[in-house]
């Protein structure tokens, strides 16, 4: 079983990265953990915002998203562990149901995580592990007075699962990937129910402004479904991101439901050390 897994992981790494057959020869020269996949995606979609600190109404509107991913195998656990980092963000411009008030929202987030890899029948690969991450953002209401905005900041520890199914159509490699991340604990900033930011930042009066979060009071998850496909020598990626962020702390309710369609490209790198056999071919 172990031998089969190892063999499969070698192959899957190449498929996951959307590599074409011409890389196969190099795989034998460079250790697996030197292969790195960078994916850059941009997207657009719809956003639904609820911030009861600002308004009891749900605001909806278009949003733009970006996502930058780095995926690499490590040498840990005989190469069964991969590492992933995600830098993402969005900007949304939303309106209330009667379209006479606007909320602008933005967020940037960084997560890094580690996954164990398993190979299942039909070449399906499962990855499961954890992530740590942090985010910062805002929701700004264009017409409120002393409560014009809600700041978003927090850090969290997430569980993460990934399923990858590589397949070929007429010898052309494709890969479908599904990823679901869910924070299991963390901490977030929130003003108290009726606390003004003037109190916090001008007077220095704090009142439970950093709260412990868990799925009970902040049921949040992200789902990402992507398809990698080659076009000539390039690998492109299209996908759908469902980003659901919710919280219910300090008697304030908040949710951001972002649904985005993504498109981008994938780049594959291999880090070469001097001890590698290729060193003779290096210029420096």
């Amino acid at each position, binding site marked *: 079983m172990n031998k089969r897994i190892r063999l499969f992981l070698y192959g899957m790494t190449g498929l996951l990265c959307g590599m074409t057959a011409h890389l196969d020869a190099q795989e034998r020269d460079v250790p697996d953990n030197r292969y790195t996949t960078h994916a850059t995606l941009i997207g657009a979609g719809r956003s639904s915002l609820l911030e009861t600190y600002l308004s009891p109404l749900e605001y909806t509107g278009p949003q733009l998203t970006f996502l930058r991913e780095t995926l690499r195998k490590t040498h840990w656990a005989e190469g069964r562990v991969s590492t992933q980092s995600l830098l993402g963000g969005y900007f949304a411009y939303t309106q209330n149901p009667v379209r006479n008030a606007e909320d602008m929202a933005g967020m940037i987030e960084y997560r890094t995580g580690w996954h164990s890899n398993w190979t299942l029948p039909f070449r399906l690969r499962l990855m499961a592990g954890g992530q740590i991450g942090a985010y910062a953002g805002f929701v700004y209401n264009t017409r409120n007075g*002393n409560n014009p905005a809600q700041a978003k900041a927090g850090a969290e520890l997430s569980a993460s699962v990934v399923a990858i199914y590589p397949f070929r159509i007429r010898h052309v490699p494709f890969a479908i990937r599904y990823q679901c991340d869910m924070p299991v604990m963390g901490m977030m900033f929130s003003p108290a129910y009726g606390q003004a930011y*003037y*109190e916090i930042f001008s007077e220095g009066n704090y*009142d439970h402004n950093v709260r412990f979060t868990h799925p009970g009071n902040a049921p949040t998850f992200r789902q990402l479904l992507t398809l990698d496909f080659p076009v000539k020598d390039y690998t492109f990626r299209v996908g759908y991101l469902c980003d659901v962020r919710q919280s219910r702390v300090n008697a304030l309710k908040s949710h951001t439901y972002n649904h985005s369609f993504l498109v981008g490209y994938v780049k594959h790198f291999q880090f070469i050390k001097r001890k590698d056999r290729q060193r003779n071919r290096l210029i420096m």
Partner: protein
Amino acid sequence: MRKLYILLCPLLAALLLPGCVREDEIDNTPQGNLYALWKIIDERYCFLDYKAQATGLDWSGAYSRYSNRLSEGMNSYQLFEVMCDMLSELQDGHVNLSIPSDMGRYWAWHEDYPDNFSASVIERTYLGTDYKIAGGIKYRILDDNTGYLYYESFSNGIGEGNLDEIMHYLRACNGLIVDVRNNSGGRLDYAERLAQRFTNEHILTGYTSHKTGTGHNDFSTPTADYLSPSTGIRWQKRAVVLTNRRCYSATNTFVRDIKECPLVTIMGDRTGGGSGLPFSSELPNGWLVRFSACPMYNARMEQIEFGIDPDIAVNQSSDDTLKGVDSLIETARTFLKK
């Protein structure tokens, strides 16, 4: 594979357990909007219990009383009128309902009282034409060597450099009159910045609280508010602060703060009040509602929502009005000469 199940099970459980975080949707109908307005005030307004005692406010029964005035086919202006009537029970100048054509308001806190102020008299008799302007403050030295400064609105900015220049210019005066009449508020930091020029000590001026939940009594422990002395030029002689009923909101807080300064005397009429920091929210039909959210108290933990009494009560006399003289300024000048 066991490891995989161990990792997957909590994740799946966590995905299935929590639900959506949503707010109850209220219909965009006259009944729905009136209920939404009542609910916002019921959950977020900070003076319900205080006003139940002070004015006999019965907010719990307000919705049923005013929903009886709703009828099929009533237009938005009629609905607006019903809502404004309901809000006027709060007797709060910080409570407004805004629609594109109008702003519902409660201004009895100054409309029912004498003005005790005339801008034309101030300009003609006291400021003249050669007064100085620094930031939002107009100032000059009166004939009897009394300094006079008028701060019309705390929405108009004032910098530390402005205040240094003003204090330096007025340094040789026997006393100073700080006129904040008709100043209906603005930014608290400008109000505090001016008040800091009148204390050499770190003094307790009041307390601030906020709601921590939807219950009428869900409040945080009040936090002490202190006035710290300015690091710039500070006023070291006697000063009189002139007030009237139009001193509201941030000006009410300014009077609360400066009243604790040892060389300062408050003179004129009671301030208008407005001690709740206002927040905004909205109704299903998009109408904007403003309400008091964070109560402020004085240094003795007393409510100042309905104003602050002056140390010396002075009203504008009809004789002085005929003479084109401001009774409050003249009384302050006499007081400062003693």
